[in-house]
Every structure is written in structure tokens, then in C-alpha cells.
């Protein structure tokens, strides 16, 4: 296991096969964003229990330990094990490309990441899924709304990337 990355086509095909196995064996397509609604219900249930109980959305997406929560935890541990074994694990608060544009401030990067994540999940829950739920699972089932969502994920992302980094490489 060297530091050279795995070929993305190879890794992608294996991931597609993995989804099929998961669907046939467990009846589960991949998805990740619902977990953040369930986590939000958990936190708000502690911080403001009466208000949380009044929200229809949390009634539908209350906290529970389910397949998807374990899936998301599994992704974190899978990446942890893989990076430690491959020698690529690295504690880093500011990504290289970001550092080149905005400098080494972890606070600035952390604040941007927080608001980016906030906006992203509002969008994902509104659209009904994220790049896993829509992009992988929905598009492989040829769901029109998933394909449309995926296209607009990229359009929004390309616009912001251009605003942040400007034109070209």
C-alpha cells in the first residue's frame, strides 16, 4: 500500500458493485444526509425538547440508531483504518488548496466549513438527498429528480468554486 491513490475508475466500479451487494443482501441503497436530520433531532431534543417535539419534520426523522447511522460511522472508520495502514493519515485543519488561497488560519477555515455544511444540508434535505442518495443511488435507478438534483449540485458548486478561486487553474 503506497501513497499513490487507487485508480478512480477501479474504485468507482468496486463501489457500484458494493451498492448492488448492499441492495440485494440488506435492501439498502447508499445515502448519508438523513443521518444529520436524526442527529439534529437528538441535539434539539436535549436543548429544546418542547420545541423539537412540535416539529413535524422531527416526528418523521427522529433520532434512531439505524442502518444509515452505522453506514456513516463505518465510512469514518473505514477511512481511518485505510489511511493509517496506507500511511496517509494526517491531522490537518486547513486543506492545501484552501491554504494557498486564504492562508493557514484554522479559525477562518473552520468558520467557512461550518457555514458551508449548514447550507449544504439545508439544500440536501430540501432536494431529498445528497451525492450518495441522489448521485449514486438515485441516478443508478434512473430517477429523474435524482439526475436533476445531481446536475444542480455541480452547477452550484462550480459557481462557488469560480467565485472563490477565480477562472482557470
Amino acid at each position, binding site marked *: 500500500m503506497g501513497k499513490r491513490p*487507487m485508480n478512480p475508475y477501479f*474504485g*468507482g466500479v*468496486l*463501489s*457500484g458493485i*458494493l451498492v448492488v451487494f*448492499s441492495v*440485494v443482501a*440488506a*435492501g*439498502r441503497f447508499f445515502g*448519508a444526509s438523513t*443521518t444529520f436530520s436524526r442527529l*439534529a433531532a437528538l441535539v434539539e431534543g436535549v436543548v429544546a425538547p418542547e420545541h423539537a417535539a412540535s416539529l413535524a*419534520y422531527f416526528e418523521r*426523522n427522529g433520532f434512531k440508531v439505524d*442502518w444509515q447511522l452505522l*453506514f*456513516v460511522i*463505518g*465510512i469514518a*472508520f*473505514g*477511512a481511518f*483504518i485505510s*489511511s493509517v495502514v*496506507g500511511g496517509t493519515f494526517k491531522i*490537518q485543519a486547513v*486543506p492545501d488548496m484552501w491554504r494557498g488561497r486564504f492562508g493557514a488560519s484554522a479559525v477562518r*477555515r473552520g468558520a467557512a*466549513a*461550518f*457555514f*458551508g*455544511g449548514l*447550507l*449544504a*444540508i*439545508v439544500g440536501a434535505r*430540501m*432536494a431529498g438527498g*445528497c451525492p450518495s442518495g441522489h448521485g*449514486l443511488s*438515485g441516478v*443508478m*435507478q*434512473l*430517477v429523474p*429528480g*435524482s439526475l436533476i*438534483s445531481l446536475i444542480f*449540485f455541480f452547477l*452550484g*458548486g*462550480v459557481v462557488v*468554486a*469560480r467565485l472563490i*478561486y477565480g477562472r482557470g*487553474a
Partner: protein
Amino acid sequence: MNDLLMGLVAGLAFGFLLQRTEVLRYDRQLGALRLIDFTIVKFMLSAVLAGMIGIVIARQMGLVKMDIKATVLGTNVIGGVLFGLGWGVLGYCPGTAAGALGEGRLDALWGMAGMTVGAMIYAEIYPFMSRGLFAAGNFGKVSLFGDVGLGDFLWLGLSLVLGLGLLRRLELLERVKR
């Protein structure tokens, strides 16, 4: 219980693949959004096409129960753009944020905290999603497989041609940019 174990195993394997291909790196995700490094698009499209082949075959054998999200143009488009704007700033999507944290990227933790707060905000605005522009173009739970007349194998063939054609174009574009 078995269901939870299956989720953990699928996550572990997916996390391994995301990490080894570097798809969960901020630099790779922004590389794609800046149209200079299409690693994540190659990964995603090959996963979709391989998965689609498997799903079509397993469907013929009666092994698959489809899990289809409703197509609602209003929320798909508005939510899609909002997601994209946030994604371009964060540089991780919900699944890859967890993986990035796993390989030591601490900014992903801030992103995940933001996602949890964002989900609280969404719970507040959720009642508006059934109104006005948000609810426009509701086609319900449809898939081109089964619901629109061409037959599974024809749709699969068409998808393969389009998907592989797009990958070829991206390879050429990447070569020009380097």
C-alpha cells in the same frame, strides 16, 4: 441487528474505497468544481454505471426492491443549487465529510457541526416545502426503469453510451488543462 451490522460493513468498505481513491479530499472535490481534476466525477460515474448494470440484472432476477425518491422539480432544483453552493465552500459532501474526518481532516468536523445545525434549520422551514414554487413539478416516485416505456436494457444501454461518452470528454478536457 443484522441490518445495523450490514450498514457498518458497507460503510467500512465504502470508506476504504473513498480514502484510497482520495475522493474524500477537499482538494479533489474542489478540483472537480474548478474543472481541473475530475477524479471524483470518474469515481462517481463508474460507480453509477457499474451499479446500474448490477441493479438491472438483479431486477430481472427479482432480487431488488427499488428505493425511489419523489421527483419534485421545485425542491430538486432549489435544494440542488443550495447544496452546491454550500458544498463548494465546505469541499466535502455528507458522506465524504465523515470519511475526511477519519483520515484526520479536522475541518470536516466543523462541516459536520454545520450540517447538524443546518438540519435544525431545515426542520423549521419544512412546512413551506409543500407550498408554492417548492412544490412545483411534482411527478411522484418515478424511475425511467419500469415507468417509462423503453425497457430496462435499452435504458441501460443508453446510459452506458452517455456515461462513457461524458467520461471520454472529461479525459480530453483534463489533458488540455494540464
